[in-house]
């Protein structure tokens, strides 16, 4: 993971270097003269060679210093920290929701294979991955907020201020963001369960007289879930990138919307910090998934396979 994180950070650094526009000129604006240009360039370390600049950047990032926003001069760290809770709430809600939907649909559709439920789950898992989140979000806003007026069309209320408003505003964006993950997981859980239900030990369990619910939930599901655990890492990645879009659609004040607004304003330090944070979370999620994987399936051992 360390070399991967290192290479990923180099890529991000080089991408920033490719970005058009001279940051010194942007920061100085109208007041640019030859002297203060050179002075600021020196202060920012931009007169150093790239490896030195990279090392400086990494050491700043390690200390939590992501530089200053070009738009309003505020520290990027503060801008992000102010919006992180909103994104976390939305992301976790979407993850929980997608797993709940996928487990229910996946199990039901595997058990009642040739029933309407099975058909619906298959259709849902194929359609769900092909609809863009922003389109679904707009349809939801139009149907449930503007027409039926069940929910407010967007924006955010802190849980501490008004829990019921918080929930009402959370539901539509969370459902939208959960859709992709729910669709992919449903498919995995369904096919995993269908595979395990053919195994000999399932027949043994049935022969021993276990009830059908016990056979499916206790014996089959545990093994069937192993492949979908690996998917969890990817799913968190999908939620991270989905947050950019869903937050924009629902005017949700999280880091995704901040990044999209900053893209429009060419405020690249913020974009870079948000992407870096997302990469970090994604790597961490995948690491945890690997650990969980070894724990769930004792046949997999990372230590043994290396030696």
């Amino acid at each position, binding site marked *: 993971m360390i*070399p*991967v994180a290192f290479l990923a950070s180099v890529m991000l650094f080089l991408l920033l270097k490719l970005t058009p526009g001279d940051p010194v000129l942007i920061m100085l604006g109208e007041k640019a003269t030859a002297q203060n240009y050179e002075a600021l360039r020196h202060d920012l370390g931009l007169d150093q060679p790239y490896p030195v600049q990279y090392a400086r950047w990494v050491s700043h990032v390690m200390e939590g210093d992501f530089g200053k926003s070009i738009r309003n001069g505020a520290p990027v760290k503060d801008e992000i920290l102010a919006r992180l809770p909103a994104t976390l709430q939305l992301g976790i809600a979407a993850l929980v929701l997608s797993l709940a939907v996928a487990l229910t649909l996946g199990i039901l559709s595997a058990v009642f294979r040739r029933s309407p439920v099975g058909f619906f789950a298959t259709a849902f898992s194929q359609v769900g991955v092909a609809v863009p989140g922003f389109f679904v979000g707009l349809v939801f806003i139009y149907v449930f907020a503007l027409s039926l007026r069940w929910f407010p069309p967007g924006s955010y209320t802190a849980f501490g201020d008004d829990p019921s408003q918080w929930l009402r505003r959370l539901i539509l964006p969370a459902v939208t963001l959960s859709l992709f993950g729910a669709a992919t997981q449903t498919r995995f859980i369904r096919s995993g369960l269908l595979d395990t239900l053919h195994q000999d030990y399932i027949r043994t369990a049935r022969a021993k007289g276990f009830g059908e619910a016990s056979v499916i939930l206790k014996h089959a599901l545990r093994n069937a879930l192993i492949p979908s655990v690996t998917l969890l890492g990817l799913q968190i990645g999908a939620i991270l990138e989905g947050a950019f879009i869903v937050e924009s659609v629902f005017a949700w004040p999280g880091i995704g919307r901040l990044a999209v607004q900053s893209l429009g304003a060419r405020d690249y330090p913020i974009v870079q910090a948000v992407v870096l944070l997302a990469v970090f979370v994604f790597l961490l999620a995948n690491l945890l998934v690997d650990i969980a994987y070894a724990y769930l399936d004792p046949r997999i051992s990372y230590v043994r396979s290396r030696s």
Partner: protein
Amino acid sequence: MSAVAAESKPIAAPARLDEQRRRAERLWKACRRYPRLLIFGAIIGVLILIGLFAPIIAPYDPLQTAPSQVLTQPSPAHLLGTDNIGRDQFSRVIYGARISLGVAVIAVTIALTFGMSMGLAAGYVGGWVDQTLSRVVDAMLAFPGVLLAIAITAALGPSLRNAMIAVGIIQIPVYFRLARAQVLQVREHEFVTAAAVIGASRPRILGRHIMPNIANPLIVAASISSSTSILALAALGFIGIGPQPPDPDWGSMINTASGVLGQAPWLSFGPGLAIFITVFSFSMLGDAMRDALDPRLRIN
């Protein structure tokens, strides 16, 4: 070329014809066994035709504004209504097929070319080449895909061309991993060793003996990554860093529609449905091809 071949080698011609007929028969059989192959292949064919003949099909110029006809409702004159500056939405959706399918073709070509050659090299040469390339691809996979595309497009500057490049780059890992894994598997076969023994060069072994054996999974991946490309492009367009106005791009059209959702809720319907149909058909075609080419890999 085939005419020349037929003249100089009279025996080869019937053999070729036979081969062609056998192939056509095989394809027809596969289509009958996997009807999805035919259905979604046909839908994609129609979409390609729509893109190619957009000027004939579209009733209006997609860029023609009409200040007197802003946000009109769907009507026989404007099947999907008009947008916020009076452009015919239906014509824009039709022309949008050109952009989306064009991006799919170019992005997949970029990803396929780079990913496959890197994967072939890594798998066949091994050693430090493999180590280096694999680490680079791992680092790319450390980014959630669309975020990498956003970062690349932001760095290169927002435009259709750069969005295509970005969408292509983020899919390099798919082809790299696929090609590498397949090569590792195929190169252990005796016919590869035999080719090396009789003195075939590395490029010849790769091109002549290994490539044909890994073509099937690559075709499947190309179809599925066409759908990913179109979805990713739509996301870039929606957040405003993909194709720039006034290009009729489906993602940016939905962005425009989102601003006038209260007044003209129907406006996002056309591009939304277009994205869905295209993405869905490519992904279903990919699934169907996988089933037809390798029934062992069937999911569900």
